[in-house]
């Protein structure tokens, strides 16, 4: 029991959860609406896309890299898919769009994977390049424009709901989107992969010490390559979900999300230098940012101050984990002094 408490107080997730609870209570006190069923459903709804992205960003961070190409990758694979299906007049179910984005996402991810596994250039630099290539292909080759009318299957999927939460006082209804299941599935699969497969443990090992991982017998290149294939698929799923739910394809809608997502993952305790972090933390970090982003009006923070409030939160949040880290470093046996 004492051990569990000690373990808890040492974990980043625990503090993050405390912060989330504190923020929630503040919002509840200021708005009286936070803990209403339909607000919680709204947050779950808003969490879907950043949450799926965060899983991919988290996996790359664990392996010691920072991927900034996932929004561009997702935009391209979803744009290509939607364009092709709309032009072909496709009106069937959503399975084909899913299949197509998964295939295109995997191919684009493989493009990232090819570079990152072969060349000793930081992932950040490579993905900065590939992100430009992806959006360049979308705009140059596909001459991307907004697509107002999606294939019926995607539209229907975007509108389908698991359940509808009604606020008894105001009578407002919020839809729990079917897409939430995609988030749940991605997180569940990622959890199993990261914890119970040699591939997942390999990502942690590579993030901890790449040469040691190679010596231990991990096929580092292969693991990195497949990592980016998987991340390409995850990002494309997020893109498809966003597009379907908006019921329109905005080619640039996702661009610029990468920094917020990476901030969320780091807030969740993943180290920028790789090797540490948990999916629980990642989801909590994303949840915290989503809560704050989507409660500014509820709390009544003036529009002008919203960016400031969010930035402060990220600084404070990452600051807390940094302080935790330095404290635990200090506690470690010091053998440097002579």
């Amino acid at each position, binding site marked *: 029991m004492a051990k569990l408490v000690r373990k808890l107080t040492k974990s980043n997730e625990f503090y993050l959860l405390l912060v989330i609870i504190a923020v929630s209570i503040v919002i509840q006190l200021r708005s009286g609406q936070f803990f209403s069923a339909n607000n919680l459903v709204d947050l779950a709804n808003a969490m879907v896309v950043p949450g799926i992205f965060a899983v991919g960003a988290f996996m790359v961070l664990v392996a010691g890299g920072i991927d900034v190409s996932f929004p561009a990758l997702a935009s391209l694979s979803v744009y290509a898919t939607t364009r092709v299906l709309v032009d072909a007049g496709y009106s069937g179910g959503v399975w084909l769009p899913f299949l197509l984005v998964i295939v295109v996402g995997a191919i684009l991810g493989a493009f990232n994977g090819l570079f990152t596994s072969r060349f000793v250039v930081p992932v950040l630099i490579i993905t900065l390049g590939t992100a430009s290539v992806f959006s360049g292909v979308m705009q140059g080759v596909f001459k991307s424009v907004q697509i107002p009318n999606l294939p019926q299957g995607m539209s229907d999927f975007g509108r389908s709901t698991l359940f509808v939460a009604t606020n008894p006082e105001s009578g407002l209804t919020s839809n729990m989107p079917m897409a939430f299941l995609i988030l749940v599935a991605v997180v569940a699969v990622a959890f199993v992969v990261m914890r*119970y*497969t*040699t*591939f997942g*443990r390999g990502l*942690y*090992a590579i*993030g*901890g*010490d790449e*040469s*040691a*991982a190679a*010596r*231990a*017998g*991990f096929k580092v290149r292969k693991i990195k390559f497949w990592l980016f294939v998987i991340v390409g698929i995850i990002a494309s799923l997020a893109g498809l979900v966003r597009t379907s739910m908006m019921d329109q394809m905005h080619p640039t809608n996702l661009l610029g999300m990468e920094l917020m997502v990476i901030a969320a993952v780091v807030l969740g305790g993943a180290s920028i230098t*790789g*090797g*540490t972090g948990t999916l629980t933390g990642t989801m909590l970090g994303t949840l915290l940012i989503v809560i704050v982003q989507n409660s500014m009006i509820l709390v009544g923070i003036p529009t002008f101050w919203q960016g400031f409030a969010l930035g402060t939160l990220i600084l404070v949040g990452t600051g807390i984990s940094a302080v935790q880290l330095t404290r*635990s470093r200090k506690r*470690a*046996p010091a*053998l440097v*002094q*002579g």
Partner: protein
Amino acid sequence: MVDNVIAVRDIGKAFAGVQALDGITLEIAPGEIHCLAGENGSGKSTLIKVMSGVHAPDTGTIELNGKTFSKLSPIEAISNGVQVIYQDFSVFPNLTVMENLALNAELAAHRTFVSWKRMRAVAEEAIAKINFTIDLDEKVGQLSVAQKQLVAISRALMSDAKLIIMDEPTTALTKREVDALFAIILDLKARGIATLFVSHKLDEVFEISERFTIIRNGKSVITCLPEELDHATFSHHMTGREFDDNHFVPEHVSDEPILETRGLGVNGAFADVDLTLRKGEILGITGLLGSGRTELALSLFGAKPADSGEILINGEAVDVNSVRSAIAHGIGYVPEDRLTEGLFLERSISSNIVISELDSFVSKLGALDQRKADAEGQRWVDELKIATPNPANAVNTLSGGNQQRIVLAKWLATHPKILILNGPTVGVDIGSKHDIHRILRTLASEGLGVIIISDDIPEVIQNCNRVMAMNAGRIVAEIDPRTTTESELAELMSKDPSTVDGKG
């Protein structure tokens, strides 16, 4: 010698035209404790990599487990019982002890899914083999160096190892930890597991090694028993050069002390230090990690001003409360870690040398006389035989020994009367080490007072005319190096402080 664990014969390996290994032969018997010695760049690490399957040799054969290979893969090496413990231990600091121990087995079994239950069982079995108790859920990054090494050894033993190759295993360990390591190695020997130490220092593994193989420039120089080696022959085989192995005897020692301390102390580091240093002397101060030796050095140099006691220079009490005042009183300091403390690695050799006396090259107008400064840099490069084509090259183009000489030059350029050196030859190869020692002896004979602070016992015994041993923040003994053996001194250093009375 029958039934070798491993025998490499006539191994040759070239990289981009440079012959790293040239006809090396090495045989290790079951249970043998063998030491492979050689200077940096002699080909030691290439040889290990050939033996562990990382590099394929160009020529020669590897006999392993009764089979003959012309080259090995890492998997073949491991499955035939060869395990390497690298200097960095190849552990994952971010993972738990359990995973560090058990992941290899999961990989070796080509599993897709890992089982935490199975991993825990494997890890428990692994640490049990060497009676190592540790919290399996602790992150390896939180462990001490010795504990990390034990994790690495436990891991190596898991895969039915017949030979464990250890790269510089004792460098970062305390004496007690080294003893614990040796006990484990002897235990392995009893079980028929051979150990190959790789080292460039004789004394570290001398007491336990049964045979030595020394290589130089990629060639085998000698394979011999420890009885056939002493410091001089060892150094000779390593470097191909002859060294005098005599004790330092000062030529002219002044009667009056140039430096004295009375009851010097820094809270929490050391206390009651009385020492005297005369011109022409080399005084050794030795002690283990944490004995207060570094703090004493820093205190003498003003970087860590003393909390109690006084410092006298030429018989007068002076206030050494900053580095600046120490320099003004003629004290020079060569720090322990030349890379972080002493040098601007990106700057040129000559500007590093003149930086601490830059003021003397500044004209009345405030402009730096670059020509004069360069000439001074060149003078020291010549005097200390720093191997560089051009003093304008950056310091990081030099080898460790030459970098250390630059730190020396930097302080000699301030014309000190007293020179304090902290670990002057840490990480320096034998050839350079001898050169540095010779320079120090010359400096002393020219009338400088020199203090060497080092835990390298042979170094202080050979190069100092007096040695003080520090233990738990106090001077516990002063010895005459000509009549004291290395092991006697080592004992003084590592004794439980409560049983040591006063100073000798």
